[in-house]
């Protein structure tokens, strides 16, 4: 079987690699690039722990081949913080205790980020539907939902400060 040469941009940095076609994206991220923040949970496309952004859309990286990501922009949990400053979602998960063991957290945060990009002011129901592809097995989702609500409020306030006008007023 022939290897394929691919180029992917992960968190702003371009990487080239020769990969077997069967290599899963999550294994490229974790084993080849050493970005172990993206977790492998169920390995069957159910749990969402491996969620990353590909060209801005959330995807389960255990259900995508590395060759499918060739030429694409990928964002992982490692790309969320701005230096020492946590992303508002990361800070909110900390503040609201939106985790116990933390295994699902990277996927939860990545999925929540696209949820808030689509809908800056979601209802609780919309949040729950938005993270329906992400499973937490420690506890309920109460604090996770609270964390996403906190981040939504803070991100909307920050956007308002920047633009001088409220966003997602609807």
């Amino acid at each position: 079987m022939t290897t394929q040469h691919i180029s992917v941009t992960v968190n702003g940095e371009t990487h080239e690699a020769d990969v077997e076609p069967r290599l899963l994206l999550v294994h490229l991220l974790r084993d080849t690039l050493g970005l172990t923040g993206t977790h492998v949970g169920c390995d069957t496309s159910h749990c969402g722990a491996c969620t990353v952004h590909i060209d801005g859309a959330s995807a389960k990286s255990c259900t995508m081949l590395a060759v499918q990501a060739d030429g694409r922009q990928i964002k992982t949990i490692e790309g969320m913080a701005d230096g020492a400053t946590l992303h508002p979602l990361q800070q909110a998960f900390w503040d609201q205790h939106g985790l116990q063991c933390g295994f699902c957290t990277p996927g939860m945060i990545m999925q929540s980020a696209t949820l808030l990009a689509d809908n800056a002011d979601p209802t609780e129901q919309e949040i729950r539907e938005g993270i329906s592809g992400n499973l937490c097995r420690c506890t309920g989702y109460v604090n996770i939902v609270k964390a996403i609500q906190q981040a939504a409020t803070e991100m909307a306030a920050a956007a308002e400060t920047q633009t001088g006008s409220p966003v997602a007023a609807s």
Partner: protein
Amino acid sequence: MIPAQFDYVRPGDLDETLRILKDREGEAKLLSGGYSLIPLIKLRLAQPGLLVDLRDVSGLDGITETDDYLSIGAKATHRQIHDATVVADRYPLLQDVTDVIGDPQVRNWGTIGGSVAHADPASDWPAVLLATSATLVCRSQTGERTIAARDFFIDTFQTAIEPTEVLTEIRIQRRPRGAGAAYEKLERKVGDFATVAAAAMVGLGADGRIARAGIGLTGVAEAPFAATDAEAVLTGNAPSDELFRRAGAAAGAQSRPFGDVRGPVEYKRAMAAEMTLRALHRATKRAQAYA
């Protein structure tokens, strides 16, 4: 889980794709979003020798309405279908599906063509295509042909697509005035495959009676199927709860479910009747509101 080895190509257009399918007939498998195929490859339930990635094949993801039908490109993702203005305006049936198929990540990448060609017996789209008597368009090197949805789903994971063909387009009959449709899915938990699901389409005549009816069921046979006995119960009659219950009973009787972790045979049969009943009520409301 590590898939078995395979080769991979990413052709630049449809002609190149069709040539590869012909040259590597029998070992080539098309890859679209991957959310049906890759799980099977990881489990080694599917072991294709060559994956042909359709990513760079353009022109297969349009969603447009003609005078006769709504055309959905096979590469359109569930998300694209959900977000299409024409779908939001006139085809709430399709949004019933895009609201419940998989989860948000799956909807971002999974495609209607991939799902339909995969033909999981409990998947969502086939029931809709059966209820609406949709048409599927396939291309090969020898040309294009159309296949009626009712001739398409042959058996578990088996369709009428030939190994040298690409499913390019799904055509759903343009919704006329007085027609409505709905999809009702019973699932153990959000994002699951259907335990049972029913799609119902009702076309009302000027007299308010049901002039046309279509019912597709998923999860209750070796392949999704059209509940023709239920359709016969409905046609020519005035919509009523009593009529819908009789149609539901006919749909349940025509089902051939297997007992499994999602429930025993009797339960699934009863739920086929119930989902049909609920879908008929909602479809009829939509038909009456679109007079």
